[in-house]
Each structure stands twice: as structure tokens, then as C-alpha cells.
């Protein structure tokens, strides 16, 4: 390959940022891309890849330096997620719980909670999951029903969570519950808990994780499970932010969501980059009607549109990350990046599949996996319908007359 496809040029990155990203790309090229096909076909947890990422220190990307992390800026973080997702979006899903819950503890946790969890999260020794969604509450987070009622120094949790990615292997759950079910509006009665459990155990106290995990179209290799709480007891010190954190859970979780949206946008970027790489290679290798298909104008139009969408996604993601990093609210920008980059990813996966013709539909070709992995991005971390609402609401508030 002559010039690297999807380089880091044009983003105004520092040498440090480039070095980090190049190291991750090197890892993805050598350790993920050659193995992902079999791992995904077997729906196997990529232990060796995860160990490699731990050794590289990647679990601590966003954890502050004083707690043993790298304290990387959001731009590097976002582009790093894109690189991982270029290899396999499930791998970015595996590290994602770490970033969300780690970020919540770093921002809202008590000093004791930071000391207790952050160093182990940074090293990857402790893995995390993030659990808001319930069978009857997804987009509408205010509709959750799970309760935690106080009994002395303990909280007793009852209810069911759904779609908890990393839920089985995690040793720590960032859990949204209602501590005051009578509150009006309901979000004022919500609290975030840091629930510790034995990683890998299907039954701990009053918590059951039904097996097997949920069956999915894509996003294989990382488990998404239900969590069933039936009188499960945790110490009251599990409340994120200590006693003052009671009733703050909804707001604490939402504050991390902009970063979460940038994360999903970056995953879209990664998949789109890979789909494009495969497409531009195949377009030159495959011939039809006496010339490489890349010489047919309709295929060229696809390549041009894909690359343009990828470049635009990248710029939107970097702009949102810079804005958020600078301390401003970036709800509109993060929403735009998430909406645009994930739709581009979906289109790129489809166009790349079309360029691959019948082979693109074959399980033997990588593009088929990308095609199955993209739809989740349209749904997770706020569906794209919800993103439009957020963007519009933000704009109307910013430009109110």
C-alpha cells in the first residue's frame, strides 16, 4: 500500500497524539485484524486482545494521571476509539464500560471511591459495565423502575436491567436506580450506585445474570446480558458521590453522555474507515467488463461519497471533542457527530458491500461483519431519532428569540 488510507493528516495533532494513535493502529493491524474473523464467527471473548490492550495501558486512557491513568485528552481518546473500532467495534465496546464508569467516578465520586476504583480501572484489573436500560425503559430513561430501598446501612435493590454490555465479566456495575420512587419529576429520585460483584459469576447474593447472554445480529465477542436483582444488598457507601449523591444519579449519568456520544461517533468512524479501505482495495482488484470495477464511474461515485462522509465525520468528531475538552457544553456538537458519523458508517458498510458484489454477502469476507456491526451504532447511546431531538432542542435553546 503506498499512501496510508485514512491517515491522521489534516487534524492538527501533536506528535504525542500521533504517536499514541499510530501505536494503536499498529496493534490493530497486527493483533486484531488477523484474528477478528474467527473470534467473531465463534462469538468468542477476545482475551488475548484485551490482555494486549491492558499491557499497552489503554484501559486507563481517560483516568486522571494521579489515579494511575494516562489522562488523555478527548480528541486522542475519540480517535483512539475509532482506531480500535476499525479493527473490531466489539473491542471498543469492551473498554467502553471502563471509560463511562471511570469518567463518572472521576467526576462525581468521593475521594474514597476514586482511590478504591480508579487505579484498578486504569490497569484493567477491574472491568466495568454501565446499566441504565430496562425492558420497559430505553430512550425514556426517566421511566426506569428499578428501586433501591434503604435498610440501616444497606440498600436493597429490586428490579431488572436489560442490554448490559460487559455485564457478566465486569466486577463493577454503574447502576441507575430509584431511591425515591415517589419523586416528581421521577429523575429527582434517581441515584447512581457503584455495585461491586464477583466478575464472571452468574449468581451473587440477590443478583442473577441469566445465561446464555442475549443473542445479537453483530457486536459479538462481548456479552450483553440481563441483570435480575431480587433483594440484592449493597452497602450504602455504594452511592456515587456519597450521601450527597442521592437523587443525583440521573444528572450524573447524563453528564457523561456527551463523551459517550463522541465515543459512538468514533466507533462509526472506525467502521466506515475499514469499510472504505476494503472497498478501495477490492475496486482495484476485481474486474468486470474488461476493466477494474474502480474504473466504472458508478463505483467511483460510491468511493467518493464514502471518503467524503468519512472526512466530514472525522472533522465533526474532532470539533465536538475539542469543544467538550475546552469545557463548553457540547450537547449539540456531540449529537451531530454521533448522528452523522453513525449514519455514514451504515452507508459505507452498505456501499462497500455492494462494491464487493456477491462476495460481500459471503461470510468469508470482512465487509459482511461490518454490515452487521453498524446498526447498533444507530441505536446505542441515544438512538439517532433521539439525537435529532437533542440537536434541535439545543439549537432552539441557543438561538431562542
Amino acid at each position, binding site marked *: 500500500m503506498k499512501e496510508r488510507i485514512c491517515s491522521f493528516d489534516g487534524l492538527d495533532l501533536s506528535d504525542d497524539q500521533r504517536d499514541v494513535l499510530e501505536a494503536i493502529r499498529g*496493534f490493530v493491524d497486527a493483533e486484531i485484524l488477523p484474528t477478528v474473523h474467527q473470534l467473531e464467527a465463534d462469538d468468542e471473548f477476545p482475551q488475548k486482545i484485551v490482555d494486549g490492550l491492558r499491557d499497552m495501558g489503554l484501559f486507563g486512557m481517560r483516568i486522571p494521571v494521579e489515579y494511575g491513568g494516562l489522562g488523555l485528552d478527548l480528541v486522542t481518546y475519540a480517535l483512539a476509539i475509532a482506531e480500535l473500532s476499525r479493527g473490531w467495534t466489539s473491542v471498543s465496546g469492551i473498554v467502553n464500560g471502563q471509560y463511562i464508569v471511570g469518567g463518572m467516578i472521576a467526576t462525581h465520586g468521593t475521594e474514597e471511591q476514586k482511590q478504591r476504583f480508579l487505579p484498578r480501572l486504569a490497569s484493567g484489573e477491574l472491568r466495568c459495565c454501565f446499566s441504565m436500560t430496562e425492558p420497559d425503559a430505553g430512550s425514556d430513561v426517566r421511566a426506569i423502575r428499578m428501586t433501591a430501598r434503604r435498610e440501616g446501612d444497606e440498600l436493597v435493590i429490586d428490579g431488572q436491567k436489560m442490554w448490559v454490555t460487559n455485564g457478566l465479566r465486569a466486577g463493577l456495575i454503574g447502576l441507575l436506580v430509584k431511591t425515591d420512587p415517589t419523586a416528581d419529576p421521577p429523575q429527582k429520585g434517581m441515584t447512581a450506585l457503584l455495585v461491586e460483584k464477583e466478575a464472571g459469576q452468574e449468581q451473587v447474593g440477590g443478583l442473577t445474570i441469566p445465561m446464555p447472554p442475549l443473542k445479537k445480529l453483530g457486536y459479538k465477542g462481548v456479552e450483553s446480558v440481563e441483570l435480575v436483582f431480587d433483594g440484592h444488598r449493597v452497602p450504602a457507601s455504594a452511592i456515587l458521590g456519597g450521601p450527597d449523591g442521592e437523587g443525583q444519579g440521573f444528572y450524573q449519568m447524563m453528564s457523561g453522555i456527551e463523551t459517550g456520544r463522541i465515543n459512538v461517533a468514533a466507533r462509526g468512524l472506525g467502521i466506515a474507515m475499514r469499510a472504505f479501505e476494503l472497498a478501495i482495495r477490492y475496486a482495484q482488484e476485481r474486474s468486470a467488463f474488461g476493466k477494474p470495477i474502480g474504473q466504472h464511474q458508478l463505483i467511483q461515485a460510491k468511493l467518493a461519497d464514502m471518503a467524503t462522509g468519512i472526512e466530514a465525520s472525522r472533522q465533526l468528531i474532532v470539533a465536538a471533542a475539542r469543544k467538550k475538552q475546552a469545557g463548553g457544553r457540547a450537547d449539540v456538537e456531540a449529537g451531530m457527530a454521533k448522528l452523522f458519523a453513525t449514519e455514514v458508517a451504515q452507508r459505507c458498510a452498505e456501499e462497500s458491500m455492494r462494491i464487493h458484489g456477491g462476495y460481500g454477502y459471503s461470510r468469508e469476507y470482512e465487509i459482511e461483519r461490518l454490515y452487521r456491526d453498524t446498526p447498533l451504532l444507530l441505536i446505542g447511546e441515544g438512538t439517532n431519532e433521539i439525537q435529532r431531538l437533542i440537536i434541535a432542542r439545543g439549537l432552539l435553546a441557543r438561538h431562542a428569540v
Partner: protein
Amino acid sequence: MKIAICVKEVPDPTAEKRIDPGTNRLVRTGENTLNPYDRHAIEEAVRIKESGVETEISIVLVGPASAARTVDKALAQGGDRSVHLADDGLADSDILATSRALAALLERDAYDLVLFGQQASDAECYVMAAAVAERLDRPCVSQAASLTLDGSTLRVKRQVETGYDTVEMPLPAVVSVSDAINEPRYPSLPAIMGAKRKPHEVLSLADAGIDPDTVGGAGSRTTVRGLSKPAGRGASVRIEDDGTAAEKILAFLVENKVVV
């Protein structure tokens, strides 16, 4: 134990090599990086250090000032400090001149062991270690497939066409390691970010006490007189499988002494 690793900055090995038709030299204006073979030498030094031997690992590089990023890549891979000879007077150095500059740098500190990668991915000469060892008047082994330290003796298993030689040599010594000696680790992100904060020594020719007439174009004896494509491969033998392909392939390999 002081170990020096001589590393080279090369054009990105995944990019296609281009020759400037005017100068007959390799075009080096694209993306440059650490010679991948040198990573094996660094890894081996790190393993010696991790085995419990107190070790300081120095990265030694002769190359333009812009090679500072390559120095950092090598440090991220496992060096403790760097010595970078960067001087415009070094431009156009050939092996003779570069080995002189490297030897001068290596004589400034008393290194017990000098390691090289087996070759550079740009010029593919395989001889720099031997040239430097000659100038330093030190024993030299190439293609090391394993290193074992025993006090001030180094035991080297050396890969040769028919198997392995085991060579013992006193330190100080010069060794070029084969790319089969180890699997270099991925530098950790903290190591990448910490590389810049390690001690860097950047020297001019004058700082290093090197006579400018002995290096660069003036100190070189190589002229490229012509370039040609390598001869194509000989005619290939095509074996159709009629049920006896395996025997035919074996017979071919025996006949050509590939297997005995």
C-alpha cells in the same frame, strides 16, 4: 551493564521505495520511522534488563535533526537515554562514513554490549555491525538467535543456513540480532508519552570530536554507478495434482537440496 543500541531512521517500510533518478539514491522525503529490525535489538536489551541485571540502555542514532521522533520511538520501545548525532555535515554518508561516526559515539561511553538489528529495511546491507566492530576492535557476531549472559561472557546462538552455531565471546562486544530472536512488545502508551522526558543528548560533529572530512560525502567511498532490476526468477515448475503431487513436490525439494 551498559548496552547501546544503534538504530536507524528509515522510510516507512510499508510505503513503496523510490529512487531519485538524478542522484540514484533512495528518496527519504516521505514518512520516516524506526527501522523495524532494530526493535528486536531493543527488545533483547529490555529482556536482559528485566532478567535482573542492572542495565542502562542507550539509543544511539546518526541522522538528521528531524529523526528526533524516531529516537523517541526507540526510547518508547525500551531505552533509558539517547545519543543523537545530528549534523548537516553527515549528509550523504555511506557505510564507511556512518560506521566511523557510530564508532566515535560508542567510544565516548564504555558500553559493555553494542546491539544492532540484522539489517536496515531501506538499504538492506547487513554489514553495519561488522563495520563498527572492526573500528572498535571488538568481537562481533551477526544473526544472533539468542543471547545468554554469564558474567562478562556472552553466549550467542547464531542462526546459519544449516542450523545454529553457539559462540562464546568476552564483553565488550558487538552483536547484530536476527529478527527471529524475539517478538518485540508493543510500547505501552505511558512509555510512548514518557519517551520525550528521558535524557536526550544531541551532538554535532564538533561535540563528538569527529573530523567533518571523515564523514558525509567527503568521508564516503561509495558511488552508485548504475541501477538495474534484479534478474527475474527462473522458470517455475507447475505440478498438476493427479494424485501424485505430494511425491512430485518431495522429489523436487530433494533434488534441489531444500530437504535432505
